[in-house]
């Protein structure tokens, strides 16, 4: 039997549990806990004059009501600004409960704790908040005009402003290069708001142990270790007295990396204060109006290029709608700015963004995290250049590609991790070749003509992207082999359904030479691993995967050393197969890892037959050496960390064929093709699953999803009735092909894959619709009604 599992299509080990209702999500815990509910602002911008709770006090089952004035010490301070940046000159965060001004519909104002959620909501409905309505600021361009201010002390509503300039090799600035270019184009591109929208919303459940003076918190989070630090700090508790556990988490997609959410510190605080278990489970409406959104940006693009379509200069100005607060800094517009250039060598590049406050839900990263917008800009630009020159769209892209021999390739900018934007590896021409072959790019014109003859309109589009993945600073892994031969793996980062239990077990099983059935994996539990960053930025496989591999290698070395002593062999002659250490070529000279684990821990007490072999009176020993040698530790365990110098850059290219109905303007995706390069594949099936989910969300962003705010700052579609996410019936079959250019930056040669699927979809679908319709598409998403209006405008322009 082989134990080489790295790279195999191993079935997901977590699925049996998750699909048979055995998963333990936040709301499955704490059945007897008190319930928290919140009174949230119904206004986009208002001053709180008074909070009158008197009517709620008679509600049977009410336990406590809290407003900002009740919060002690650090709890009353603004929430942390997690990622400061010199360009974020006017960063602002909200309070756990609103202090005097509310700045978006949904901002928490009062917390109610009661016997159950029904009673808590009854009490909420009886609390009267007296608001003085202030003028709301809605829409990023309106906000930039700064007629009204979101924060009285932030002039112009500008939270941050950043310019990055990369001169051409000849030393020209982008604007000079554009002026000097044979061809120039200028246009505007828009992307609307969407959101992570995980199936499970946020949630927190806290238990205070008065005897032990310790706190256990369960949170549906993407970072349990950081929630732990935030809770300990805000509540003034010693870190070792706080445990935070992420149970099964029903999706995150970025929104759950933000921390601490108001509820994440208020619920533990109330649990300690009341000495009762308290739980809060976010409902869907709360998730729409009280968590985070993303994507909305306006882009003004100017480009200069030569006769072959090579980009000589590119100048992009971005208006980023940040919502009411900036708890996660300016990561999103930084990623748009830097990842916009994709797989291309841009002659000279200038990118400027202004991050603007509006009285809407705050903006933090959502899967793709600014890349879908950047790729939309770059790929729409490539298509415009091709149209202007009358050239094939893939030729223009190929003319701009970084070539395989040019890695590492320095784009001359600073990436989101604060490190230089240097691509480690890739093969873009090969990727494009594979994509064109898979979709049948060269034969498409004939197919299109054939369809046209039948009165059908079809079009094809293509989009390329590069994704910085596996950002630092570090992750760790701990591996222990116990005397029953089982392997226990833990890492601090969390899981939201990606398949970590499977891929980390594959890595451990491969590194240690044990059957995968012997390996168990725990993630996101601070009792098992205290130091971690979190699950975001397509980093789990790169960061924890490599850390676990390195920890396994330590354990393996130790196991071979112990086994070598027992077998009186040279460790260099030993191999591990199927959980048994043996001399290469001599299978009879062997010892099971279970026994090696026993021998690694010299015992005083024998508690079973197996451990008798490890007691101090058991076998021969050297009387001049201590039972645990200098520099050694008892037990068969090891811990290691992986900390990369910088991110590793995955890439991919998508193509789609769409059909548009000439009468109803319905848009149908006929084919969707993905060529994907995330370096060495740990589990191709799981990578494909990640791509499928990502493309599904991308289809949502391209054709369905938008947050519709009215001029008062009310979110008009805050439910699944009107915020349209694609069903399985709206997501096409996705055809995938893999290219593997290993990363030279990490031992496993892997790159991240979590976000890839979503990134180019809007660009690809827009291009395909444009090809089918002959109408310029410059804003996404696009609905049949939008397409109908575009057709009418185009007809009108032609007749004028």
């Amino acid at each position: 039997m082989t134990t080489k599992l790295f790279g195999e299509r191993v079935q997901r080990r977590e699925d049996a549990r998750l699909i048979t209702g055995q998963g333990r999500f936040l709301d499955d815990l704490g059945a007897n806990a008190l319930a928290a509910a919140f009174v949230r602002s119904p206004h986009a911008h208002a001053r709180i004059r008074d909070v009158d709770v008197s009517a709620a006090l008679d509600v049977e089952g009410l336990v406590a009501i809290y407003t900002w004035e009740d919060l002690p010490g650090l709890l009353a301070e603004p929430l942390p600004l997690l990622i400061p940046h010199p360009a974020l000159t006017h960063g602002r965060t909200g309070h756990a409960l609103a202090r005097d001004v509310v700045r978006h519909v949904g901002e928490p104002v009062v917390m109610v704790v009661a016997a159950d959620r029904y009673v808590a909501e009854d009490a909420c409905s009886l609390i009267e908040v007296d608001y003085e309505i202030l003028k709301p600021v809605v829409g990023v361009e309106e906000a930039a005009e700064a007629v009204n201010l979101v924060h009285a002390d932030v002039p112009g509503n500008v939270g941050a402003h950043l310019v990055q300039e990369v001169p051409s090799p000849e030393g020209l600035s982008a604007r000079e290069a554009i002026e000097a270019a044979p061809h120039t184009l200028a246009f505007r591109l828009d992307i609307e708001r969407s959101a992570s929208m995980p199936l499970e919303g946020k949630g927190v459940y806290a238990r205070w142990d008065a005897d032990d003076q310790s706190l256990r918190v369960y949170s549906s989070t993407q970072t349990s270790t950081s929630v732990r630090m935030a809770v300990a700090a805000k509540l003034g508790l010693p870190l070792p007295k706080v445990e935070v556990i992420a149970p099964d988490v029903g999706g995150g997609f970025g929104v759950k990396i933000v921390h601490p959410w108001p509820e994440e510190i208020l619920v533990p605080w109330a649990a300690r204060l009341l000495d009762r278990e308290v739980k809060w489970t976010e409902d869907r409406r709360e998730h729409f109006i009280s968590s985070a959104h993303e994507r909305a940006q306006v882009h003004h693009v100017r480009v200069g290029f030569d006769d072959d379509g090579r980009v000589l200069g590119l100048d992009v100005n971005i208006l980023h709608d940040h919502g009411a607060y900036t708890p996660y800094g300016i990561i999103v517009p930084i990623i748009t700015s830097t990842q916009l250039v994709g797989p291309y060598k841009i002659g000279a590049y200038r990118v400027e963004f202004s991050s603007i406050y509006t009285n809407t839900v705050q903006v933090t990263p959502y899967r793709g995290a600014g890349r879908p917008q950047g790729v939309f800009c770059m790929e729409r630009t490539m298509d415009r250049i091709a149209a202007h020159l009358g050239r094939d769209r893939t030729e223009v892209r190929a003319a701009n590609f970084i070539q395989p021999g040019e890695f590492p390739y320095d784009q001359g900018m600073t990436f989101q991790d604060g490190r230089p934007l240097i691509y480690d590896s890739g093969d873009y021409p090969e990727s494009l070749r594979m994509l064109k072959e898979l979709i049948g790019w060269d034969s498409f014109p004939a197919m299109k003509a054939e369809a046209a003859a039948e009165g059908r309109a079809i079009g094809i589009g293509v989009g390329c992207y590069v994704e910085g993945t596996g950002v630092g600073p570090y992750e760790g892994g701990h591996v222990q082999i116990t005397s029953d031969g089982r392997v226990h793996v833990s890492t601090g980062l969390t899981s939201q359904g990606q398949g970590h239990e499977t891929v980390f077990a594959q890595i451990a099983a491969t590194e240690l030479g044990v059957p995968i059935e012997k390996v168990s994996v725990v993630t996101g539990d601070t009792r098992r691993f205290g130091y971690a960053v979190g699950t975001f930025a397509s980093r789990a496989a790169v960061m924890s995967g490599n850390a676990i591999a390195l920890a396994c290698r330590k354990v393996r070395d130790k196991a071979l050393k112990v086994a070598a002593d027992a077998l009186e062999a040279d460790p260099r002659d030993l191999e591990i197969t199927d959980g048994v250490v043996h001399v290469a070529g001599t299978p009879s000279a062997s010892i099971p890892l279970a026994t090696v684990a026993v021998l690694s821990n010299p015992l005083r007490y024998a508690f079973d037959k197996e451990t008798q072999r490890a007691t101090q009176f058991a076998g021969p020993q050297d009387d001049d050496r201590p039972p645990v040698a200098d520099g050694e530790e008892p037990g068969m365990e090891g811990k290691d960390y992986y900390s990369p110098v910088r991110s590793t850059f995955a890439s991919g290219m998508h193509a789609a064929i769409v059909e548009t109905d000439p009468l109803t303007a319905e848009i149908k995706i006929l084919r969707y093709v993905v060529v994907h390069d995330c370096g060495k594949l740990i589990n191709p099936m799981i990578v494909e699953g990640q791509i499928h989910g990502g493309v599904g969300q991308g289809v949502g962003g391209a054709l369905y999803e938008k947050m519709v705010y009215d001029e008062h700052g009310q979110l008009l579609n805050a439910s699944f009735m009107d915020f349209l996410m694609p069903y399985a019936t709206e997501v096409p079959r996705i055809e995938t092909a893999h290219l593997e250019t290993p990363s030279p930056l990490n031992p496993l040669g892997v790159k991240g894959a979590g976000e890839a699927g979503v990134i180019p979809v809007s660009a690809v679908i827009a291009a395909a619709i444009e090809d089918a319709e002959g109408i310029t598409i410059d804003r996404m998403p696009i609905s049949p009604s939008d397409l109908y209006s575009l057709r009418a405008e185009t007809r009108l322009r032609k007749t004028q």
Partner: protein
Amino acid sequence: MKPSPFDYHRPAGLGEALQTLAETGSHGKVLAGGQSLIPLLNMRLAAPGHLVDINGLTELATISADASGVRVGALARHAAVERAGSARAVQPLLAQALALVAHPVIRNRGTVVGSLVHADPSAEMPAVLALLGGSVRLARLGGERDVHARDFFVGPLESACLPGEMAVSAFFPALPERSGTAFCEVARRHGDYAVAGVAAAVTLDEDFRITAARVACVSVGPVPVVVDVTGVCGPRPPASVDWDEVARAVQDRIEPEDDIHATAGYRRHLTGVLVTRALRGAAQDAAQSTAHDAGEGRA
């Protein structure tokens, strides 16, 4: 998202249900499939003081069909009506429309009569009842009345069902011989409420000329908009009808509005497209049944 407090009643018989509804008056609300009511309660958009759960009244889970039409009881689920062969034989439009109602899990629970009483102008079943000129039977303590579809739909989410009354059944009349039906709609996603939708019924004469043609349009007015287009269509064979003129005749009668999913202009355009599709489909259906009848006649 938890409902306001309410008293829960689970009557054992229709009499008890009507008694409770009489006692609770405007504070009482009937719970059948709950596919619209439960979300309204949870979002606290509706807060009735009394909920009368009729799911125990299995005597209302009836579907009976005869030559005159199909009568559907208050507890007949969408899925049961969709699958009932007798109903399909007498009035095929029921199954044609029900296939477009939401998703299977919703149809397993939701009821046809509940959908009528909910009176959503975007829903399919009100349009079917309106197109066919059906009626709803409203019972109250000590009496009942039948209300014609044209009087039953009063406004968006507003029906003629009064406090103390309960819709116990609905009647969907059969169409004359040589008739056909169709339901065409465009929804943003599979199973969503339609952006626009058209139910059509067409009757042909023995020479395959249109002698009656009617449409009911959804999502383009406060109630289903029924337009009789017999005058524009007939008496002509479908192939010589000016369908654009028919579409315009309907477009003149509808009152679409802008919302977040579509502009009024698009809805108007789409309704025109769907009117043509639905009427042609219905005419084809009628022609097939006419040919079928003729074939049977010869045999």
